């Protein structure tokens, strides 16, 4: 009886010791991490370069577009709007885009339009900071305009995808 009580006490002390040890082991982990390299960036000052095929805002090279309407068909959210008309230049029939707009509000940045485009005219650029002061600024972005995202990002320059 006495022996068992003694064993119980010993066991309790052992459990207590193990408990305290487990806490100290955890403290050791956090202590080690105090000297580990930092993993964060000071965001507005430091920026991570975007990856090669990053999917940002939809962009267009107007002269490459052949008006095949593939992107309009594939877009799952109806974010793109395209219209065209026939004109005659030098007695040759030619198609001209009347409107090609992009609705940021609906876009889900899936990149399907970029993938399906036969001439790689439509693509997703590397812009990711897309805050605007007015709701309307994001609704109808004219993709034919080379300055299309100037109102969202003053450093925006139209650039073809590498």
């Amino acid at each position: 009886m006495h022996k068992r009580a003694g064993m119980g006490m010993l066991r309790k002390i052992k459990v207590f010791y193990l408990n305290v040890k487990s806490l100290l082991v955890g403290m050791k982990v956090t202590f080690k991490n105090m000297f580990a390299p930092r993993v964060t960036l000071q965001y507005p000052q430091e920026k991570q370069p975007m990856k090669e095929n990053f999917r940002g805002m939809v962009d267009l090279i107007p002269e490459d577009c052949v008006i095949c309407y593939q992107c309009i068909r594939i877009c799952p959210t109806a974010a793109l709007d395209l219209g065209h008309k026939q004109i005659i230049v030098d007695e040759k029939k030619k198609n001209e885009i009347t409107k090609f707009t992009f609705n940021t509000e609906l876009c889900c940045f899936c990149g399907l339009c970029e993938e399906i485009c036969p001439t790689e005219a439509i693509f997703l650029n590397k812009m990711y900071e897309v805050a605007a002061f007015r709701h309307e600024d994001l609704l109808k972005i004219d993709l034919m305009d080379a300055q299309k995202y100037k109102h969202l990002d003053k450093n925006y320059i139209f650039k073809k995808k590498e």
Partner: protein
Amino acid sequence: MDLQELTKILNERFPGVLGEENKTAVVIKKESLLEVARFLREDDCAFENLHCVTAVDRRDKMELVYHLYSFKLKFMLTLKIYLASDDLAVETLSGIWKSANWLEREVYDLFGIKFLNHPDMRRILNPEEWTDYPLRKDFDRPDFIRLPQTEGLKAGG
């Protein structure tokens, strides 16, 4: 175990409950659902798991689909019943499988099929005061964003 065997067992045990022939599912009559379900759960096949309950709106009728799973047989049974559009009510299975509780509530919410004797027959995803059933084929709203009609639209190659 495959579907033929199971159909045979069910035919022997419950003559006359099987509805029309179906290659992928066992179709039974609505009235005998509870009986058959209890049999499937407690018999040797041991369909312990009611994996999924859903419905398909076939316009003229409503198709209620139960996916039962048996760990023992490693077999997924698709059990179907058809409901007439004017009588969308069926006995609940939540007394047999607890998982039926929420799954049936979801079907009620999206299709408007009432489950009789269900412990908590409320809408689950949509607001309770709403009266529409969104997954029915005739459900439509003017504020849906529709994909553009692009049939025949093509200019270049």
